[in-house]
């Protein structure tokens, strides 16, 4: 009788628990190896994108978001160039389906140097405008008033979300620059 209980209830539980423990250990070990590699690679990609946007910057330093009060909640990361050429902002806004992540380089005088869509999960055919030169280029040189952008961009959910991100970035710029 006890043997029966052991076979039907105890053994399965013991084996399943053992497998789960071994598996968790293996995954934690693998994570400890690949985790740093993944982070380093992401950091390197970010640095390269930023270096492309502001070529005459010597290097980029991360600005701690908590040090700047009253930032819009969409702002994810802020970097400043160590030789005072400008700032880089990364913001994520809700688009048509999921987040649109925007990166924008702003010069010290408050004009946009360049802006790009880092990633988006919009449907094929809807979100593609976010990657097009004809949509992104008109932002270059504008200041926080974003004059004339509405007519260029048309008005769809994706493009308006993008413009909202840029507006938040400009707001963040004035907060950071003052501080």
């Amino acid at each position, binding site marked *: 009788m006890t043997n029966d209980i052991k076979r039907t209830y105890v053994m399965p539980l013991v084996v399943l628990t053992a497998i789960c423990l071994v598996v*968790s250990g293996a995954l934690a070990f693998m994570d400890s190896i690949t985790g740093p590699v993944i982070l380093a690679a992401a950091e390197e990609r970010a640095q390269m994108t930023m270096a492309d946007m502001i070529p005459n910057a010597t290097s980029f330093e991360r600005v701690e978001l908590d040090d700047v009060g009253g930032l819009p909640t969409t702002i994810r990361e802020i970097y400043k160039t160590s030789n005072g050429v400008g700032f880089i902002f990364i913001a994520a806004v809700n688009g*048509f*389906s999921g987040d649109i992540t925007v990166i924008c380089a702003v010069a010290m005088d408050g004009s946009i140097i360049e802006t790009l869509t880092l990633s988006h999960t919009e449907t094929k055919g809807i979100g593609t405008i976010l990657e097009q030169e004809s949509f992104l280029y008109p932002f270059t040189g504008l200041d926080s008033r974003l004059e004339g952008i509405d007519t260029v961009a048309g008005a769809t959910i994706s493009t308006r979300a993008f413009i909202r991100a840029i507006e938040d970035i400009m707001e963040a710029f004035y907060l950071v620059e003052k501080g």
Partner: protein
Amino acid sequence: MDFRALVIIMMSAVLVNNYVLRQFLGVCPFLGVSKDLKSSVGMGLAVMFVMLMAASVTWPIQVFLLDANGLDFMQTVVFILVIASMVQLVEVVLKRFLPALFASLGVYLPLMTTNCAVLAVTISNINNGYTYIEALVSALGAGLGFFIAMVIFTGVRSQVAAADPPEAFKGIPITLISAAILSLAFFGFDGVIENLFR
């Protein structure tokens, strides 16, 4: 809570990003169980139900358990186990308390464990950074989209069954061709929603 944002998430999950027809998620049950209306309605309801349950359970697990302890690499394993045990639980509860519902959904529930659409909805809720309410709405939308696709496709198949395709295309190939045409039809919704919510 922005109600408009929720409507957009819902509509895009149902029509624009339809799981089966646009993203190839859950194709196996879509082709396998769409032969008659009764079973496709049962399957569709079961998927919707399990997706909603799964999303409501996995979101707190990810946020309060995995993210809080730096264990997000366990996501896939934990989610599958949670879905599998939840399906078991639902089966037992339905059998005990709602035998009528169990009679119509019971056969399809065990299939949910290996249904990629259910796992996909829980993972993409996390990837998209949805809030709890948004996650529930997107799960409901995904399930509803699956249900609608199933029911429409059952109608299409009953017409195809009466047709006489070339010998080699009989069976699965002609079913796939019909799925392609239905998928093409769903492309029509792209502009509709885009312009509905200007």
